[in-house]
């Protein structure tokens, strides 16, 4: 596995997933047509009449959806790897310290208001989710802080406590609402409700900043694996480093969750698979988890769209049903079992 360049393999996987995502839907678009349309779109050339319908489907529906899913998967994979490194815990995923439950609460609260069908109106619910998620991180971080240090155990405990609180509050809101229940529930299962390029453009800056910082902190995460004391003795300003990683990962997760809902397993499993196949060096693990997460979620989304076509399954169900068995299979086949 480690003889072929890991980046080559992952990018090949991602490319295949992207092409599948564009080709598959209620209308299957053959690869040759797809190739011509994409090159035409990219170079702003005009297309023959026969391809116009396909072109519309791709450019206005499939491409933005593909990019949104890609970005979400990238965010989940990257922040999952970062959280696992930060907390030195194989069970860590992007929702460990409450981002998902905070976002869920924000979304459930926002869904009780009828927003106008305008640019800002459409953004209201995801924005509420995003803001609630960031507030959650701020709260959990402040609760966990002990003088000048942020013990990871405190972070986890504060996150778990807040998650329980937020989840029950969300359930209460959902019970008391009438009709919006199903939409809120849909958010919690993970799925895509908004089409077009707006979601992509909205989350792109947050993802770029969040994932960018994470990728630059691979060496830092390696050092943190030795524990806070040893990391500091080796020269790392530990509190500052942990804060940066925490904020960056949470930013990416919050942005992803605001439009995609709570999609599980990607953030947990993709980093583990990458670690088993390509080693535990976070300088490599982070970018690989980002690429792998993007590809994995794209595949899951394709399945979610086609299995019960034209109805769409919530993506979160596909990732759970597919992800768990796949991971168990990988675990059994891996040579270096036991080194998570």
């Amino acid at each position: 596995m480690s003889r072929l360049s890991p980046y080559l393999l992952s990018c090949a996987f991602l490319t295949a997933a992207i092409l599948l995502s564009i080709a598959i839907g209620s209308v299957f678009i053959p690869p040759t047509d797809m190739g011509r349309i994409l090159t035409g779109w990219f170079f702003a050339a005009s297309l023959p009449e026969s391809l116009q319908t396909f072109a519309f489907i791709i450019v206005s529906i499939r491409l933005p959806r593909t990019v949104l899913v890609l970005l979400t998967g990238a965010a989940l994979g990257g922040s999952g790897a970062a959280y696992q490194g930060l907390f030195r815990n194989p069970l860590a995923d992007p929702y460990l310290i409450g981002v998902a439950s905070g976002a869920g609460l924000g979304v459930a609260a926002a869904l009780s208001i009828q927003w106008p069908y305008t640019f800002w109106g459409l953004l209201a619910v995801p924005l509420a989710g995003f803001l609630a998620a960031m507030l959650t991180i701020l709260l959990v971080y402040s609760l966990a802080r002990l003088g000048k240090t942020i013990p990871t155990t405190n972070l986890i405990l504060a996150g778990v406590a807040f998650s329980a609180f937020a989840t029950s509050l969300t359930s209460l809101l959902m019970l008391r609402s009438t009709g919006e229940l199903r939409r809120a529930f849909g958010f919690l299962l993970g799925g895509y409700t908004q089409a077009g390029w707006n979601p992509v453009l909205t989350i792109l800056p947050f993802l770029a900043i969040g994932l960018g910082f994470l990728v630059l902190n691979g060496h830092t995460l390696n050092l943190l694996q030795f524990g806070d004391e040893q990391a500091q003795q080796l020269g790392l300003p530990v509190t500052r480093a942990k804060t940066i990683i925490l904020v960056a990962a949470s930013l990416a997760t919050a942005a992803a969750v605001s439009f995609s809902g709570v999609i599980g397993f990607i953030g947990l499993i993709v980093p583990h698979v990458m670690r088993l196949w390509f080693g535990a060096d976070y300088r490599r693990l982070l970018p690989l988890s980002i690429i792998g997460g993007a590809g994995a979620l794209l595949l899951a989304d394709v399945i979610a769209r086609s299995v019960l076509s034209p109805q769409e399954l919530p993506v979160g169900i596909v990732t759970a049903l597919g992800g768990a068995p796949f991971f168990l299979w990988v675990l059994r086949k891996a040579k270096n079992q036991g080194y998570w």
Partner: protein
Amino acid sequence: MLKIEGLTVSYGARRVLGDVSLEVNSGEVTALIGPNGAGKSTLVRAVSGVIPLKRGIIRTNGIDLTALPPMPRARHLAVVPQAVSLPPAFTVWETVRMGRTPYLNFLGQTSAKDEEIVRLALQKVDVLDLAGRRVGELSGGEGQRVLLARALAQSTPILLLDEPTSNLDMHYQVNFMELVQGLAHNDKLAVLIALHDLNLAARYADRIALLVDGKIKASGTPLQVLTPELISEAYHLHVKVIPHPFADVPLVLPGND
């Protein structure tokens, strides 16, 4: 050379180290001994900067280490902690390479010179043939030596060791202490090593400091510090001190007189 002046550390209201002053010379092994809870580990950790000091200054060649941020501080002193729960997935080479951190950029990119220093450190500690193995597969003694190599890769003039021999068998204990002694005597490092085994200290240390209840009770050569009176009082145990049968050092034996 390392100068510790008036070091005081408290955990809340509890005074753990009180006005500790100690000098560790280059080219010498200074052993820190004392009963459990005396504060040996705390002293090592406080000097390395991971515990806040209530009072005190730590100097090396005139530079005040307490005022330095972690990165420059790590170029002056390196710590060898106990080899418990090391990240198992890194290879030995990757682990030792972490020791170069104070000289690398934040991306952790190493140059050919860094890799050579890593290789030399691995060779010095005799773990070069383990370089590709994952740390999780190593024995306790091998793991401890890897941590020593990591500290050596840090290229510091001062070396702090926190009870590194506690979990090692006889063979590895002697092996390790001879390495450490060689580093002090041949490479002129200033070595401060917290030890619980008094006879290891007697054999391999040039100077010994006895720490009891957070205070230095005595400091000097092994002969001066390892006396029946001082040790019996410090450890609340009757001991007998006899000349070592084949080494020119004292031998401490717990006895019932």
